[in-house]
């Protein structure tokens, strides 16, 4: 099943790149860039920490010896998650009612958590040890919130 798992991982990568290329408008390249960077700023230490504490494991990585020197998931943390956060921020319903905004958070974070949960269930790409899906869910919501708050502020400096 290693081949299938790697294929899924490669597809996630390709799909993320296509989505990024098609759905990030050129004039918003800088906005996307700063969002990407600020997500990394958070996922770097947290991603490493959860692996270091052995809460989560990524038994299969894209390349056979990736786990040898970097056991955290490069593909979730630096592709799928930043992309989700970028699109989340670009389409944030600023003018809508608070309830709608809360729902927006719950749905997007839910989508992301659902993907991870499925991957944990059916593949060897992610294994939860002491981890629970609701930890992912709440931390994703929190990180989205941080990125959104930061971006709202940073945007004022972008022409």
């Amino acid at each position: 099943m290693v081949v299938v798992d790697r294929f899924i991982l490669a597809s996630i990568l390709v799909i993320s790149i296509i989505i990024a290329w098609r759905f990030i408008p050129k004039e918003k390249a800088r906005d996307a860039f700063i969002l990407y960077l600020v997500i990394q700023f958070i996922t770097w230490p947290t991603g490493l920490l959860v692996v270091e504490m052995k809460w989560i494991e990524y038994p299969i990585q894209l390349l056979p010896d990736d786990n040898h020197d970097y056991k955290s998931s490069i593909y979730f943390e630096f592709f799928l998650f930043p992309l989700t956060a970028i699109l989340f921020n670009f389409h944030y319903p600023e003018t809508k009612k608070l309830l709608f905004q809360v729902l927006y958070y719950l749905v997007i974070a839910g989508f992301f958590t659902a993907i991870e949960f499925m991957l944990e269930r059916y593949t060897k790409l992610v294994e939860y040890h002491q981890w629970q899906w609701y930890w992912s869910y709440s931390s994703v919501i929190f990180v989205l919130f941080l990125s959104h708050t930061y971006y709202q502020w940073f945007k004022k400096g972008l022409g």
Partner: protein
Amino acid sequence: MQKEAWILLILWSAALIVLFRYFRKSNKRLAQMVFLCSQSIAWVYEFIQIKLHLVKFPYREFPFATDLSFSLHYMIFPTIGMLFILHYPQGTNKLRVIVHFLVFGLIIPTYSVVVERTTSLVEYLHWNWLLGFCSSLMMLVILRIVACWFQKGMVTERE
């Protein structure tokens, strides 16, 4: 505490003091963007070093999760990169620009050589000061290019 831990503690404190000062200045958005961007560049750089078995980081922050040195790419290089961009000489004096590159290009490899000789924070396998100097110049050039591109989309800040 071991001397490695002391060195990291001192470097983190120094970096945080510098960052705290610069993140409050009028061009704080640029400062933060450059800081975050340097993290990525330094991460890629370290990742390549590790993949090609050029250096080793025997004493590191996440010994199980990764072979990379976390502080180096997350705090130390980014702080220097930020200072490099924010103090980049204005005007067209070529000599000043060259001196600026040389001075900042010297910091990382020199620190690295000293640390390799005296501690177990870094261990050179196929690496030396000159390679460190050339690669750190390269990173500074990349950083400068990205910063110039990003600044084109920024409004001049006056606060």
